[in-house]
């Protein structure tokens, strides 16, 4: 009884961890099986391992190559993240360090745009893109992803920058430093971990996005999640390939997320949880 009380919670936690991870572990195992071994009932845990699923996915099996889609996702995510930082850093600076009248109102305006669902502007954006010849153009996604992540980034960075002591900034200004210098030499070094966390979260959201990409891109600017939707109706013939594809496309997010677990929580809760 005493032992159960002492070790029970730990064992239960391990059990929960395994149950939650099981689908991912199974997906990983299936991705290394041949298509025939992957689609058996009951499932085979001991089937021979092969890289065929990955070979199929990367296109040597005759299907469409995922490389253009992966490259598009990389461009959209990295470019929009950089653009977000470029716009959010000065804004957060103004909101947290230099006083602006009614600054909380501005902050709430930023946040409120995040609560405007994506479908609210989808049709006009589609019509605009079609008339302007921007359909199937990756740079349109860059702009939209920037607007999608900007509110969260401003909020997060505002809370990170608020930790920079005002006295340090005032001192730099008294010494005659101008805004760009203050930002790069004084503020950035102190707030760097927070800025990195913000960038990480923007990257993850952009990488994951499906609705805009699905509606506004086609062949040329297709992103990785859109590429994955090609597997929605495949009826089990390509189970190993589906698993390999899902894992490869999730890999950047998994790696980034594992590396920065704590920052992730703090960022996702808009800095409210520290």
């Amino acid at each position, binding site marked *: 009884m005493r032992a159960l009380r002492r070790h029970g*919670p*730990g064992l239960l*936690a391990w059990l*929960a*961890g395994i149950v939650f*991870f099981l*689908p991912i572990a199974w997906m990983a195992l*299936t991705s290394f099986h041949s298509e025939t071994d992957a*689609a058996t009932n009951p*499932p085979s845990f001991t089937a021979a391992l092969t890289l065929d699923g990955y070979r199929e996915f990367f296109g040597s099996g005759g299907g469409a190559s995922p490389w253009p889609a992966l490259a598009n996702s990389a461009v959209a995510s990295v470019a929009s993240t950089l653009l977000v930082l470029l*716009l959010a850093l*000065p804004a957060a*600076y*103004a909101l*947290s360090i230099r*006083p*602006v009248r009614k600054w909380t109102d*501005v902050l*709430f305006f*930023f946040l409120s*745009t995040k*609560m*405007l*669902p*994506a*479908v*609210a502007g*989808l*049709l*006009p954006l589609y019509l*605009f893109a079609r008339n302007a010849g921007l359909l199937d153009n990756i740079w349109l996604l860059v702009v939209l992803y*920037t*607007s999608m992540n*900007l509110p969260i980034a401003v909020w997060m960075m505002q809370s990170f920058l*608020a930790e920079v002591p005002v006295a340090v900034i*005032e001192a730099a200004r008294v010494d005659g430093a101008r805004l760009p210098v203050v930002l790069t030499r004084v503020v950035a070094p102190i707030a760097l971990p927070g800025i990195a966390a913000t960038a990480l979260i923007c990257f993850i959201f952009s*990488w*994951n996005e*499906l*609705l805009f990409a*699905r509606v506004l891109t086609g062949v040329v600017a297709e992103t990785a*999640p859109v590429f*994955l*939707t090609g597997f*929605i109706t495949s009826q*089990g013939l390509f*189970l190993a390939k*589906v*698993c390999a594809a899902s894992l490869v*496309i*999730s890999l950047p997010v998994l790696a980034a*997320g*594992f590396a920065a*677990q704590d920052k*992730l*929580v703090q960022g*996702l*809760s808009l800095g*409210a*949880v520290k």
Partner: protein
Amino acid sequence: MTATTAPLTRTPARAARRPSARLRAWATRAPLLPALVFLIAVTQLPFVATLVISFFDWNALYPKARRFTGLDNYRQVLTDADLRHSVWTTVLLTAAVVLASLVLGLVLALLLDRRFRGRGIVRTLLIAPFLVVPVAAALLWKHVLYNPEYGLLNGLSHYVGGPQPDWVSRTPLLAVEASLVWQWTPFMMLILLAGLQSRDQQQIEAARVDGAGDWQIFVHLTLPHLRRYLELGALLGSIYIVQNFDAVFTITSGGLGTANLPYTVYQSFYQAHENGLASAAGVLVVIGSLVIATFALRVVSSLFREEVSRA
């Protein structure tokens, strides 16, 4: 922040030199403007356009027949049985997923709050579902777990001689919900874990010395402390799940009564080309979100005020 910085601007010396003060005020606002202008242009303008289009009868296949119909689209959206159903589905999906993942997340956070061997590994295992790309997670559930012929669920059920149902067609909404609960529980767990670890340990020790049991400490100390973290998790979860598109699109393609509002909006203009109707439905999604958002902003601002008063 306000408390410490406000006096700097309101010194009489600066207010006295008026033109320079005005210039200064603009210089202070300037860094904000690019982000503000960008955000208004890219998010608010399209919404205004959606609002305008929602008053028109406009099928993209017959652009010449476009005409103003006032509130007709809204009447149609609200009286259409399918659309009303998708409103209901959205509510059901959001409420079920948020509640289930919040409760599960709380249990897991309480378990992880204790010290045990391999806690770091367990935490990493538990976070993983949240870090799988949503479309990939939906594909995983649809093909690898739910499939009636070779899916893992029925495969495991086979070993104990259990039934072999076709999960997606038998309980479609539940199938979508389960996959979303799996993805969102880690998120709730992370927020609640942060809440648990910010508890005042001395207070808990004191209660223990006074003879309080685990359950009493949980009900009277832990739960009240967690309240704002529970609220935050519920609100952030609602904002994202109410807009869910990926899981519905991937697992059921909106079939079998699982079409939620975002999927319906997508479908009515992408497939049916009904621009006016789609816009009206989109505006309704916004109104629904606004209800959550007003509440959300109030909670966030109360968190925020606490932070300011602490500073």
